[in-house]
Structures are given as C-alpha cells and as structure tokens.
C-alpha cells in the first residue's frame, strides 16, 4: 500500500505537469485539446533524437550520478523544450486560430485537434516504428526505503524535476504581470478581454508554457516507462480526468486532480489488473461530472 501511494504520487506528478497547459487553454479558448497527449509523445521522441546525437560526444555518454540516463539526455531537455514550444505555437496559428476567427462551434476545435493528434502519431510510427524505445540501456538502479518501498533512483529525479517545473510556472503565473493576465483569461475570458487583455498575444504565451510542460512531461514519462507511439494517447484520459476534476481553467485544481488521478490509478491495482488503470481514471471522472459538474476545486460563477 505505502509503495503504491508513492508510485501514485510519481505518476500523479507527471499527470499534473501535463494537465496545467491543458486546463489553461481550455479556460481561455474553450478548446479541449485532444492532441495534448500526442504532443507529449512528440516531446519524448525529440529528446530521443538528441540523446542519440549527443551520445556521439564521448563525455555525454556517461551516466548522471546514480541515475540510469546519460548527461546527453539531460542536455536534450533544452532542444526538446524549444521544439515543443515552437510546435505548439505553430499548431495554434495554423489550425485553431482560423477556427477561433470564425467563432466555430466547440466540436470543430475538438475534431481538428483529433486530426492533429492522428497526424503526429502517424509521423512517429513512420519514423520510429511501433517498437518500444528507451533513453538508456542497462540496469535501472534501485533504492530500498523503509516500509518496504522499492524506488528507482530515476523516480526521485522525476519528482524533483516535475515539481520544480510546476513551481516555476506557478510563480510565473502568480508573480508576473503577464502571468496574471493569462490567469485572468483562463478564469473568465470575456471579462478579461473587456479589461483590455490582448487574447491572441497571451495565447502565444500560453501555448508556449504548455509546450514547455508538455516536453518535460514527455521526457519524464519516457524515463519512468518507455517510449512508444501510443504513450500520449493512453495518457490523455487521465489528463482529461485530472483537468475536469480540478475545474475548468484552475491551475491548483489541475495539480490536485493530477495527484488524485495518479493515486487512484496506482492504488486500484491492489484490486484490479493494471490494464484497467485508464478505466479507473475515467470512472472517477464520470463520478465527478455527475456529482460536481464544476470540478472538485472549480469555483462557482457568481
């Protein structure tokens, strides 16, 4: 049990990381981005390219301290984040912006994002095939903690990086003028627009933040498990569930929702086969939707 709770928090941290961008964009543009999961996959695979490129430079092949991965992977965070940010902004410019201009129905954005998701996944299948990939070969060092908890050293790294990234974004959104504008938009888009906030400019920044978190989430998820083309899609249901649990546009809600989803999925394996994890995430979401349609942490509109 204690072990499952720890695993749940680790998984929850990655879900939380992915859900912040999703909830911000949902709050600002009413777009429920179905390509979010596949953008996470793309982030993970971009890091794979750079890890193997960097492996040609001798000293970058060395493993980082007690972890299973190399200095090359650590360095790959930078190009992966940059490319993920550019990709997120470009997709918005090319696909969602024209839809926003025509004032399209919720469904058009939803379906267009599904199209984006399939196109990206097809590309990944063609370049890397359906097989699993790993950032590093060989043993994954373990730690033996009290209460019979077995933990990989990598998982400590995942937690630290995930929460550092979340904290950075949280500070940005709460302490800077731009961050406050984004939050105002996510909370009540029409009111913020009336107050003179430039939605399109803020959206570029929002997609940028989402892109950063997406790339980090993808790489961390890749370290935790393995890289495969469907990884992001499988991740999407828990992401949606976390965001809905947290309430539209709420960042703290999304973070808490992520942790709850991670815990629920891992602890459920005490009674259910692990393959039921996505179904558990979904069931939780349905229950919340029925009893608290605005999410557990969603604020009631006055």
């Amino acid at each position, binding site marked *: 049990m204690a072990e499952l709770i720890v695993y749940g928090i680790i998984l929850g941290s990655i879900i939380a990381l992915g859900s912040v961008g999703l909830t911000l964009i949902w709050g600002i543009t009413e777009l*429920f981005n179905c390509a979010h999961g596949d953008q996470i996959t793309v982030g993970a695979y971009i890091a794979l390219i750079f890890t193997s490129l960097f492996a040609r430079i001798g000293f970058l092949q060395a493993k980082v301290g007690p972890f299973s991965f190399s200095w090359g992977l650590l360095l790959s965070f930078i190009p992966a984040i940059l490319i993920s940010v550019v990709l997120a902004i470009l997709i918005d410019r090319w*696909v969602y912006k*024209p*839809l926003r201009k025509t004032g*399209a129905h*919720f*469904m*058009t*954005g*939803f*379906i*267009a994002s*599904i*199209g*984006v*998701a*399939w*196109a*990206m*996944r*097809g*590309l990944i*299948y*063609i370049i890397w*095939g*359906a097989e699993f990939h790993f950032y590093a070969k060989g043993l994954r060092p373990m730690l033996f903690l009290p209460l019979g908890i077995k933990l990989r050293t990598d998982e400590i790294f995942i937690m630290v990086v995930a929460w550092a990234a979340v904290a950075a974004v949280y500070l940005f959104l709460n302490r800077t003028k731009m961050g406050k504008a984004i939050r105002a938009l996510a909370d009540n888009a029409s009111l913020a627009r009336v107050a003179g906030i430039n939605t399109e400019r803020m959206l570029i920044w929002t997609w940028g933040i989402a892109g950063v978190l997406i790339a980090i989430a993808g790489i961390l998820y890749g370290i935790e498990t393995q890289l495969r083309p469907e990884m992001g*899609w499988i991740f999407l*249901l828990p992401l*949606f*569930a976390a965001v*809905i649990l947290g309430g539209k546009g709420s960042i703290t809600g999304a973070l808490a929702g992520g942790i709850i989803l991670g815990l629920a999925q891992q602890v459920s394996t005490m009674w259910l*086969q692990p*393959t*039921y994890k*996505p*179904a558990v*995430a*979904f*069931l939780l*979401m*349905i229950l919340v*939707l*029925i009893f608290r*349609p605005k999410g557990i942490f969603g604020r009631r509109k006055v």
Partner: protein
Amino acid sequence: MGLPIYGLLSFLASFAVMASIYAIFAIGLNVHWGYTGLLNFGIAGFFAIGAYTSALVTSPMPTGVLASYIKQAFGLNAPFLVGVLSAAVVSGLIAALVGLLTLRLSEGYLAISTIGIAESIRIFFNNESWLANGPQGLIGLPQPLSNILPPAYYSYVYLVIVLIFLAVIYVAVERGIRSPWGRVLRAIKEDEVMSSADGKNVFFFKLQALVFGAMIMGIGGALYAHYSAAIQPGVFEPLFGTFIIWTMLILGGTGNNKGAILGSFIVWSLWSWSTFFILKVVPRGFETRAPYIRYILIGLLLVIIMVRRPKGIIGEERQVSKF
C-alpha cells in the same frame, strides 16, 4: 481465374462490403450528431458490443480440442438474423445505460465521457478472457449463406446482404427524421432551451436518439463480425472504430444520410487503396511502417475539413416534413 479482371471485381466487392458497413455506422452517427447534436465519440464501444453480441449468440460453444484454446461465456448457435437482432438490442440497452449517466452533461463533457466509455469497453473485453477469449478474440464466426456459392465469391453474397441492411436502415432513418419525432430531435439540436420551453422532454428525446443510433451501430458491428469472421479487441481501437467514422460523416455532410454514405465510400477508398500505392513507393524494409501514412492522411483530412469546409461535401439537407 488468372484474368486480372476477376481479381479486381472481387477486390471491389470486398471494398464495397466494408464501405457499406461503415455507411451504416455513419448513418447511426448522423442520428446522434447530425440530427440531435449528441457528440458521441464512443462509436467503437457500440461497434464492439454489436460485434461480440452477435458472435457469441451465433457461434456454437467450442468443444473438444478447441475448448482448451477458446474461452467464451456462452455460444447459442443461433441463426444469423437472431445474432444481428440481439446485437441491436444489447447495444441499445447499453446506450440507454450510458445515456442515463451522461446525457445531462454539457456537450464537451459528453464527448470526453463517450471516449472513455468506449475505451473502457475495449479494455473490458481485452481483460475478461472468460467472456470472449480476451486479446485473442473469437475466430471462425459463422457466415450466412456461405454455401450457395464457392468461397471465392463470398464477398458478392455478403455485399447483397449488407446492401439490404443499409437500404432498410437508410429508409427507416429518413422516415424517422421526417416524422414529428424527428422534428423534435432537430429542434433540440438547434435550440435546446427553446425545445424544453416548448414542453418537450429534451432528456428523454435525447435518450431515444442515443438508443436508436446505437442500435444501428450495433447492427453495423454484427455485420462486420460475420464478414471478417474473426474479432479481437484490437479492432475496436479509437481510430478504426470511432474517428474514421466521424471523418466519413463530416466529409460527406453532417445531417445528411446521402452524405454519410458518400463520405464512407470516399474515406474507405482513401484508406484501403492508399496501401497499394504506398507499398509500391516505399523503400524495402519500411513496408511495416508505411501503412501508418494513413494515420497522417486521416488526421490531415480532419483538420482540412474543419478549417476549410466544416459543412462537408454535400452539407446538411433541408428537411421537408411529410406529415
């Protein structure tokens, strides 16, 4: 039989069978989305339920050596039509259950919930081996009228069966949508608040539409199962089971059954014929990856339709009521 024309004809027949089965799904989706405005992204779930129901109802319980390889909860060995009918009934019942849980949600939540329901159904069939043999699925399903012509010609026989079903469903939906009942559905799609102010029980009408469309999808699932004669949970993944059907309907024209049929034939030709061309041009060693180009094709098609022509090719038909 060496003449290429025979090969081409039987290829066309099997192409038409699949395209027509997809047309049935697209008409079912049209009842949900095109006429009532229900965002059902869980077609794959009703597809799976229809296929598995008919498979279990029509196939005999495995005996002898087979019994140790194939596990299934029951096998009634019933005739084909009984199988199709039970597929429609079970799919409708599940839809009623799903509807009671989710139809009060706003449209975005409904969309996400139905994706989740379909995935849960697929995971359920995959995990519960006692029910329908888990990931291996069921094989050797009975095929109706398989002995009247040599096996090489079976596609032609089945094409006739599927076309009859398609025609009956098309007429039933067209009549339904032009009836007073259908007018209420379209009123709900246009303006839900007005319809309920008009004294219509919006929830109950939505539930009826969900059940009706799901029954059509259940029939489509059964027809697929008996044509391919083998089903496994992998068939009911979101692309093949749900999103390709959405692409068909919105390409052809939402709210238009002719558009649904047209879209099914166009998208299915892109899907099935692109493999030939792709396999001719890709370098050796990439054959296993090349078919994924179709993912990109479907994805880009969805994006382009949404951005350029959300009405589809034909667009919504103006309905003139006959009553």
